[in-house]
């Protein structure tokens, strides 16, 4: 342990011990809600209390057989995937452009491109509500997909941009000088190199859309309710164990996304390590 070498005095050891205790408590605070809600979804009773009266899958059964929940899951998938595809295309193009563009307006453009992340959700939602209602884009899939794309694209610009920072633009020039048409050069030279950034950008984009609820609250009609939206009304009305089943399903999706992300990051680090 690297800390050991410097832990010479009692007071230092006490300080280090205190750090470990406080950090442990914070880790418990961070994990407790997620860990507490999981077993409840497997309860055979209708009350959200411990000890569990017995184990069962009845709430998952109810989730799967509820048209409302399944529609919302389907909506979340449709909107999430469409917004991801759109934001990956727009974000990657923009990141490629920004990497080569030299202008004093670049910081401004970058600020504009990244601003959807910083602006409070309610403000974006209210603006979109005013703007999309007259042109019939509220209560439609297209409206939600466009709105979620705007929120998700900054993440693609950031992640692809970060990969491009270590990307040697001369490779693209070399491909061109060897006679590769621009699209071919992109597909065979640039794309494989920026793929990790692109993949993590896509994961971020999907997670952003999959988790978004404020814009959906303002803009979705009854047919476009997403999973988080359904959870929102569920929490408002009364928390039934079915919500905990939905929560576990959502968390599982998050864990898969996170694990994929970690895998990508590790792979990237390995690649960097071997090239250095």
């Amino acid at each position, binding site marked *: 342990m*690297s*800390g050991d070498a*410097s832990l010479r005095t009692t007071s230092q050891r006490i*300080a280090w011990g205190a750090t470990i205790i*406080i950090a442990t408590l*914070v*880790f418990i*605070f*961070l*994990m407790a*809600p*997620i860990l*507490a*809600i999981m077993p409840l979804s497997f309860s055979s009773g209708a009350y*959200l*209390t*411990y000890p569990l009266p017995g184990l069962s899958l009845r709430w998952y059964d109810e989730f799967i057989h509820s048209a409302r929940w399944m529609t919302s899951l389907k909506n979340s998938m449709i909107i999430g995937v469409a917004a991801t595809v759109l934001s990956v295309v*727009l974000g990657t*193009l*923009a990141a*490629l*452009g*920004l990497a*080569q*563009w030299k*202008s004093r307006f670049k910081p401004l453009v970058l600020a504009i*491109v990244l*601003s*959807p992340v*910083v*602006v*409070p959700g*309610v*403000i*974006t*939602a*209210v*603006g*979109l*509500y*005013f*703007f999309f209602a007259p042109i019939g884009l509220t209560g439609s899939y297209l409206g939600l997909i466009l709105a979620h*794309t*705007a929120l998700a*694209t900054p993440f693609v610009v*950031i992640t692809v941009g*970060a990969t491009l920072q270590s990307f040697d633009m001369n490779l693209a020039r070399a491909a061109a000088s060897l006679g590769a048409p621009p699209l071919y050069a992109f597909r065979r030279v640039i794309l494989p190199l920026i793929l990790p950034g692109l993949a*993590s950008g896509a994961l971020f984009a999907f*997670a952003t859309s999959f988790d978004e*609820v404020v814009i959906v609250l303002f803009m979705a009609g009854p047919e476009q309710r997403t999973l*988080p939206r359904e*959870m*929102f009304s*569920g929490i*408002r009305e009364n*928390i039934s164990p079915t*919500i905990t089943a939905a*929560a576990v399903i959502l*968390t599982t999706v998050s864990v898969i996304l*996170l694990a994929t992300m970690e895998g990508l990051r590790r792979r990237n680090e390995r690649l960097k390590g071997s090239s250095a």
Partner: protein
Amino acid sequence: MTEAFLTSADAPTDVPLKRRLKRAERARQVKALALVLPLLAFLLFTFLGPIAGMLWHAVDDWEVRKVLPHTVATLADWDGRDLPDEKAYAALADDILAARAAGTLAIAAKRLNYAVNGFRTILTSTARNLKAPPEPGTAKETLGKINPAWRERTTWAAIKGASGPVTGFYLLAALDLTRNVDGAIVAAPPDQAIYRDVFVRTFIISFSVTVLCLILGFPVAYLLATLPAGRSNLLMIFVLLPFWTSLLVRTCAWIVLLQSNGVVNDSLRFLGIIDAPMRLIYNRFGVYVAMTHVLLPFMILPLYSSMKAISPAYMRAAASLGAPPLTAFLRIYLPQTLPGIAAGSLLVFILALGYYITPALVGGGADQMMSYFIALYTTETANWGLASALGALLLVATLLLGVLYGRLVQGQQVTGGMKN
């Protein structure tokens, strides 16, 4: 001197190449810009346009102008000192009859009711009792008889004040201010003056959550930065997993944990620590707990990256020069974490300012923040002007802090504060 000489000497062969290079470079720049343009155009339609539209709604004053056009035109040269003359009354009678026929009176009534409470009744009663256009010269008398409010200067001042095309009315209202009958800016009546409190509350909640995150996040970041990579990567999962978990899931989980027959209250009762359940949610405490939980990773991650960059050699050097551990920590380590502390705190504060979902679900009526009122006026009462004005103020606060944040992390990696 030499440079000038060299360039001029090389000029015959150099200039065409230079020009060609320049041209190629310019073409590259145009191409680069062309790649960014689709996204900019997209954001113009889905983000910048809508936000500009919202800002416009905060000052737009079209209702009275549209519904009572003749009245607005005649009032344009009314000095506002005495009651307007017969011409204005006649114009108003015409406008009201036309609006009644077109069914648009309610639009103006709603707008004017914001300015003077009860204006809706004045307009509707007048419209109901005004059977036909008054005889020339009797409009003033007729309207005054139907509703004595037309003999009041304030009634007319309200119409003039709302005649547009732009107004500061909503922005002033969002700051608990209003214009009196003479057009001077004064404090709003106490029953309408709630927004300063909401602003202060929003800032207090955001600030408290930021401080809580810093207190809880600092030891964790320190531990993660100090432990060897293998162990800290493992512990990092405890930070990243909640971070990636849906906001709704986490909020729902806190309700399950903290409600009166929830896990925490049950356990405390089981252990005999309390007799009756404590109120832990649907109040400020619940808001602090849930928001701190959601925003903590945004503090830990920037802190962690700033601490990770501090070489242990500095602390060893301080120790070898005889600094006691506490002094070394305070004088050597802590100052180097300041950029991380500033970035993390600003980020948490900015994100907290705009919070809506969490306070709406785990807070009580007295814990609702700015965003709640913006949403309320947009969807429930459809007072778009006020919603937009409150939104404009929140946006300005956020953007100012955002620019500050941008300055702070400039040079540091862009992703430092975000989801990575």
